[in-house]
């Protein structure tokens, strides 16, 4: 970009400082996954708005999308974090339910003082989630069990404990702090949605602006090089799964904020859905790359498509087909794009299972 080398060098230094800043701050603004999701959101929205303008463009519909997206959005962000390290967490939904059950149980047990003690119960619920995440983290980082298996097992354990605890019943009741949040809006925007944005921002900061976040990304990008760079995989993985546990706990809070009930089997269909959302949002299933914005947009997209299918009176099975097709088409187009960009260099080895990040 510079012809005159002598003076150019100062400019180059300046430009590169700029670049660093830009790459660190706004990594996702220029990101392809985000752009793709933006396009998808707009296209999906425009399509259904054109087909069913009366229903689709109502504030009520927008609000409903905004109320429905947060719980899967937060779960998908948690999944994204696990996938960023090249792992996966199948137990997030079970953890979320444990948190919800804890809060609801404590609230009911406290009787009339339940509302006053609400914040304490929420804290305890989050501690439960944290312990769940810690168990996952220890199994993955210490015992060395592959994440997909470790969390498959803990999913059953956490879920089983929830069944034992509740006897299979749906618990009713939640502190007012939560239910109030569930119904409230600020300037027409549901507080639940604001909560999603806050979580997204928090995780965005974690990933991009903290040492742990960078380590998580590097761990996923190339675990061997990470180890040789003095990044402790134990600590990084432990931190990651504790975070996914915590996010699961937050999702559990959103469950009961939206609806003051808790049960062992709420959200069973979310487990695989959130993997789909995370990948749609640009998360590399082999680790190393992900953007929070992409994931939030992906959650919104599926919400929009789902409400659109409903408004069009298409069947849930057609929606399942559409969801699968969207995932596949996005993956294929990504791959084609990547190959075109890399033409000339041999393509990466075919990717195996989602868990083992292929070291370059």
């Amino acid at each position, binding site marked *: 970009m510079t012809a005159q080398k002598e003076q150019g060098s100062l400019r180059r230094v300046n430009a*590169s400082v700029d*670049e660093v*800043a830009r790459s*660190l701050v706004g990594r996702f603004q220029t990101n392809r996954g985000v752009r793709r999701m933006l396009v998808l959101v707009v296209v999906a929205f425009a399509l259904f708005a054109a087909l069913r303008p009366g229903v689709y463009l109502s504030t009520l519909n927008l609000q409903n999308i905004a109320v429905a997206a947060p719980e899967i959005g937060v779960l998908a962000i948690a999944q994204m974090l696990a996938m960023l390290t090249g792992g996966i967490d199948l137990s997030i939904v079970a953890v979320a339910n444990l948190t919800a059950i804890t809060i609801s149980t404590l609230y009911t047990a406290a009787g009339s003082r339940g509302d006053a003690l609400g914040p304490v119960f929420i804290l305890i619920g989050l501690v439960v989630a944290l312990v769940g995440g810690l168990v996952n983290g220890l199994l993955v980082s210490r015992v060395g069990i592959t994440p997909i298996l470790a969390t498959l097992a803990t999913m059953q354990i956490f879920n089983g404990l929830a069944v034992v605890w509740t006897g299979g019943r749906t618990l009713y009741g939640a502190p007012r702090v939560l239910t109030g949040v569930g119904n409230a809006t600020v300037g027409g925007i549901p507080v639940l949605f604001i909560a999603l944005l806050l979580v997204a921002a928090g995780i965005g900061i974690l990933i991009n602006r*903290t*040492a742990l976040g960078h380590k998580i990304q590097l761990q996923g*990008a190339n675990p061997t*090089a990470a180890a*040789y760079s003095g990044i402790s995989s134990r600590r990084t993985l432990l931190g990651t799964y504790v975070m996914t546990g915590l996010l699961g706990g937050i999702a559990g809070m959103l469950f009961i904020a939206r609806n003051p009930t808790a049960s062992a089997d709420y959200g069973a269909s979310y487990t695989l859905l959130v993997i789909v959302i995370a990948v749609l949002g640009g998360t590399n299933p082999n680790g190393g790359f992900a953007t929070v914005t992409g994931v939030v947009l992906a959650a919104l997209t599926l919400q929009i498509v789902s409400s659109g299918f409903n408004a069009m009176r298409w069947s849930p099975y057609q929606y399942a087909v559409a969801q699968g097709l969207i995932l596949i088409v996005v993956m294929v187009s990504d791959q084609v794009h990547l190959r075109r960009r890399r033409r000339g260099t041999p393509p990466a080895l075919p990717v195996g299972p989602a868990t083992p990040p292929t*070291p370059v």
Partner: protein
Amino acid sequence: MSESEAPVLEVSDIVKTFGGVRALAGVSLSLKPGTVHCLAGENGCGKSTLIKIISGVERPDSGRIVVAGTEHDRMTPSGAMDAGIQVIYQDFSLFGNLTAAENIVLTGEVAAHRALYSRRRARPAAERIVRELGIKLDLEEDVERLSVADKQLTAICRALVHDARILIMDEPTTALTRTEVQRLFAVVRQLTERGVALLFVSHKLDEVLQVAQTVTILRNGSHVLTAPAAELDGASIGRYMTGHDIDESRQVVRLPADASAVLEVRDLTLPGAYRDVSFTLHRGEILGLTGLLGSGRSEIAESLFGVLPARSGTITVDGQDCTIRSIDDAVAAGIGYVPEDRLTQGLFMDASIADNIIASSLDAYRRRPSRLLDRRRIAETITSLFGRLRIKAPNVSSPVRSLSGGNAQRVVLAKWLATKPKVLILNGPTVGVDVGSKSEILQILRQEAADGRGVLIVSDDVPELVAVCHRVLVIRQGQVVQELEGDGVDLETIQRTMAA
């Protein structure tokens, strides 16, 4: 070996570019039956690429491949095997999850287009070749559990088990003992008597001169010379390989007499790898650690960095006793390590240069009390290292994948310099780096030493050691067998001691 004999393999004008950079710029070569043709050249000059093109693993951008009079315009690995070409790849290309016996016979079965696989047929074939070579190899062991030398032997057996017409060996002897090498050469002679054509790549020039009838030399992807081996000697080959303009002369500043010890190693032992290794590295000093592959030099380096903790012995950094059981311990003690395998161990290929540079020093940039990263200071560090190491890239957010070998190595170096290590260990610092970059990297190391670091270079590139090291330790069979200092650091002495 008559002049008139038709070549069994002819490649001409092969061009190959990787992501815009030329690995081969129009190379031609012809192989005659019953001869050994040697391919020589510096790291990264394109030898392996040429071999991969002949064997159908890579597709050339342009050029012709003619095997025994038949032109192949879309060579594939199985097509090459059908044409009678067998290859010992530099990275072995073995299956770690299969046994040595299976590895040896499997390619042949593929080449024979068999549908069924029979252990009963496989085992004797593998045994026969092991017997012919007169080597010891546990055929029933999974290859991933074998030592590097045994892996190399497995790869050799695999190539020899066939009645190949053309046998290509990409550095087949790096990990072998002298006797093993001699046995291999005996087999090579038998093969040539049977009329097999061999293409042989080695950095060990004495080997080249011993077995080859013809030598082709490449430099930076271009053909430099093809000549009968009898007309060449080690010095002239070296000259053709490197060109003349590169200064590899010894430039070492004298250390102050009172330079303090920054790293002291006493009686370090790891059974099976090395034993009773002791040495001292001073502030400002560049110490070389050399030996053949498998001599234990890499393991010593990896022990110091906690990858492969030593069983016994003491390590002292800057006067402090350190227990180094893990990489964390080493980094905490102030040790940095540039690994041998840059691509998998050193770099995050898809991450940016910037992210790579701060990978090891992230914790140092945490702000208090927020614990968020201090992006301004990070940017300063990155920019300063980017400039100081003269990394050639459009900007610091380019992915490392887009860099050449020399620049990628500078990124690894920058990553460790960012941690301001007391001791910097480099394992093969210039492997796969071309001559220009190489002398620059060596200059950077001299500079870092002058700034008060202790630098430990582990390498089998003797000229490079001679060029920068104050002292050189020669390792043989896990022990320090000689220490050379000052004017004693000399190419011939080192090479002699290494191989003795």
